[in-house]
């Protein structure tokens, strides 16, 4: 098996194992399923172009995705998203219909979104990566952070999220 073939096989395995998780992370991070799908796809395109397996593939994918999201947010301050303008054309993963019918679920979703949006980027990213089962070393790699500080970061991020969620709840 040539080096390229070996990498392609490796790439397929990483894609199969990680695409859903990366999409879910990005969906939670951005609140925009279309952007999450585009970003996850772009991260995998870049991984393929890289041509070799990173030492920590999940951390690498998350780091690339975080950069893409940051760049996209900068761009969208100047132009409107095509997806946003045409929501009916880009239906990426509808919410669960049964759950979506319930007002209480919609309300909870709104508050969770609001609470997440109030967190500093690093807290939000650390919290969401931890929830995706990333190890401390992977989180440190993805966020360019020291591994010894990840535990504290997660404690603070979780507390900040819970406080923000309760504040959103109380403001109703």
């Amino acid at each position, binding site marked *: 098996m040539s080096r390229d073939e070996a990498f392609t096989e490796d790439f397929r395995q990483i894609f199969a194992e990680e*695409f859903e998780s990366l999409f879910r992370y990005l969906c939670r991070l951005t609140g925009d399923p279309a952007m999450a799908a585009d970003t*996850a796809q772009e991260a*995998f395109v870049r991984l393929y172009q890289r041509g070799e397996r990173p030492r920590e593939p999940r951390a690498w994918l998350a780091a690339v995705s975080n950069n893409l999201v940051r760049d996209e947010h900068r761009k969208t301050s100047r132009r409107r998203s095509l997806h946003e303008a045409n929501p009916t*054309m880009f239906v990426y*993963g509808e919410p669960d219909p049964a759950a979506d019918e319930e007002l209480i679920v919609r309300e909870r979703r709104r508050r969770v979104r609001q609470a997440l949006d109030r967190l500093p980027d690093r807290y939000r990213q650390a919290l969401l990566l931890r*929830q995706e089962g990333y190890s*401390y070393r992977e989180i440190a790699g993805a966020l360019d952070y020291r591994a010894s500080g990840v535990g*504290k970061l997660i404690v603070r991020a979780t507390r900040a999220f*819970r406080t923000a969620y309760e504040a959103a709840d109380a403001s109703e």
Partner: protein
Amino acid sequence: MHPSDAELQALIDGELDETRSRRVLAHLESCEACRDRKRTLALDLDLTADLLRSLDRRPPAMSIEAVIRVAEERRLPARTREGRSLLRAASLAGLLIAGAVVAAVVPGSPVREAVERMVRGPGEEEAAPPPVPDPWRQEAGVALIPSGRLEVTFEAGQSQGSVELVVAGGDTARVEVRSDSVGFVVGEGSVLVQNRGARASYRVALPSDMSSVRILIGPRTVYEVADGEVVRDEFRRQGGARRIPLSEVP
């Protein structure tokens, strides 16, 4: 000595090494306050997980083959590293031009004012013309897309008007509107024509060597090129031109 919250969190997450883990567990045996702290941390994590699940969406059916195809397309021989840098710079320049075009198309709009402010810079005279880098010339009503990949979306069908398709040489694609004012939303490789309620006709001019093109009217794909091959073409030949009436899509 009581373990820190970070240590307790790491214990919950299975991230403490064996020695520290043993030490913290031994402490928890005899310290109810720390057991409570650990319980609270674990509970917070569970509640957070439960709340975050409410945001989840089903993932899209993403084909790995499509991902590989996009990656391979970008490996075209002409695009050396230097070429890609130039392309990125050119894309940025193209976006600036396109932004100026949007402003030109929608007189008096906030977009126009914002773009004008951006191009002028603070304190400059309104008459100062925006810089127009080569090779993309600014033409009113034309969106320029310096990319090998293009998706043109007309927001909706119209009661009148048509889209003309021209495939020719050159190295830029253009979307041109005639006789009406519509908005363009220009992204890298994408143009949204905000033509809802308009009656204009349009011309889409494509370089002949584009490898990936889609033209949509509303939700309907009327023209598609994939891997350099035309896989869908609903344009009709009328005289020397290829057109599709916009009234065909409600």
